[in-house]
């Protein structure tokens, strides 16, 4: 599985982009997670303006067989959610690292234990 080098990863299988000049990062779930879930049919995302806390649930993803919690990889304020993925949850499966991103967050705090691409790849292979 090809985990993009420029992203960082949580052990709950979320990815986080490097923050732009405005301090905003993009969050999604990894291809590994999307494949494990199967076809995603419904996503519930945090509301814009709310604060999410690193390691805590902030939404859910439903697939054919199961429902999974979505965890925030960092703490911060949600600035935008991906309406495309709300309308077409299959984007999570077809383009987890691109069009299937979930929300944007202005990061105020982040845990130390986020993984690099190589570390995350090793984590999923164990």
């Amino acid at each position, binding site marked *: 599985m090809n985990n993009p080098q420029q992203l960082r990863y949580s052990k709950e299988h979320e990815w986080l982009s490097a923050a732009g000049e405005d301090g905003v990062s993009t969050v999604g779930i990894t291809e590994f997670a999307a*494949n494990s879930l*199967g*076809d995603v*049919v*419904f996503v*519930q995302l945090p509301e814009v303006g709310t604060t999410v806390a690193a390691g805590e649930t902030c939404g859910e993803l*439903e697939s*054919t*067989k*199961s*429902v999974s919690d979505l965890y925030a990889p960092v703490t911060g304020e949600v600035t935008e959610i991906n309406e495309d993925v709300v309308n077409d949850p299959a984007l999570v*499966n077809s383009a987890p690292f691109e069009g299937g991103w979930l929300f944007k967050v202005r990061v105020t705090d982040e845990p130390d234990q986020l993984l690099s691409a190589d570390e995350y790849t090793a984590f999923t292979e164990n």
Partner: protein
Amino acid sequence: MSHVSTPRRTALDAVHRALGATMTDFAGWDMPLRYGSERDEHTAVRTRAGLFDLSHMGEITLTGPQAGAALDRALVGHLSALAVGRARYTMICDADGGILDDLIVYRLGEQEFLVVANASNAQVVLDALIERAEGLDAAVRDDREAYALIAVQGPASAAILAGLTDADLDGLKYYAGLPGTVAGVPALIARTGYTGEDGFELFVSPGDAERLWQALTEAGAPAGLVPCGLSCRDTLRLEAGMPLYGHELTRGTTPFDAGLGRVVKFDKPGDFVGRQALEAAARRAETAPPRVLVGLVAAGRRVPRAGYAVVGADGAVIGEVTSGAPSPTLGKPIAIAYVDAAHAAPGTAGVSVDIRGTHEPYEVVALPFYKRR
């Protein structure tokens, strides 16, 4: 001391791995859950054809002059009246009327029947059949190792199979089976399935399974046949309103509770296990029906799961979901649920499912959700 049990692998295990299947532990078997997108697999079966490995199913053979009588005594159906070459959906119940398993029984000869049980119940069914056949001139044989089971399901399945066999498929009716040869492999060819589509189930020797699978894959490719896993098998049967043991059918329900009282044949000769309790259950179902099995269709997009509560307009619990999934055909979440009879009429207003604390509106509908044209 810990006891670690390794899941059993079917004769097609290497094929599934080569196809990159996502595998899952199902009733002690390592089975393909899906090969790619389960929704695409589902759609293939509805519109073209799908290929399934169902080798986890449990086969039991009864032979002898009283094989039919043994089944009449052991099961709720009238199997001795079944014509050779035909199949019947039936159930095996405990003395208290509780369902031990639902079964398909094929009559292969005057004195030979093939019973197909769910993988999770195969041992229970085998033990019960041996016990219940005692004293009769009938032999019960564990044939779980003797068969691999491959299903071809979908509107294109007859045309695909026709290219690989000389058997008279046109003459083979729904719920019938005949011995034949498919792609050079000896097979029991049965026109049965669990998808709501036309289709076939092929019982073959495990040593022939891979050859048959590959032949079907090649013959079906131009028609759009794809390998299909258990995930889409579940959404296909759910749309078709077919019950699944462990969900709609349990040890604690009778066939009448499940709305399937028609499988119980009280007028057959002799006694059968569960008769007395089932007669009471039949009366109860007529006079004071307990919960009724209904279909639910979502207004929203959140998916009900087994065990979720069904609630009425006043917020009181009126039932419980037994199976739920996003329906690829309807494009909405659907569920089967046991609901109090007073709220079970199609169109009943104000029915919701409690989805992790939120009451999501659902419409009560008659089963099935989907019927092939």
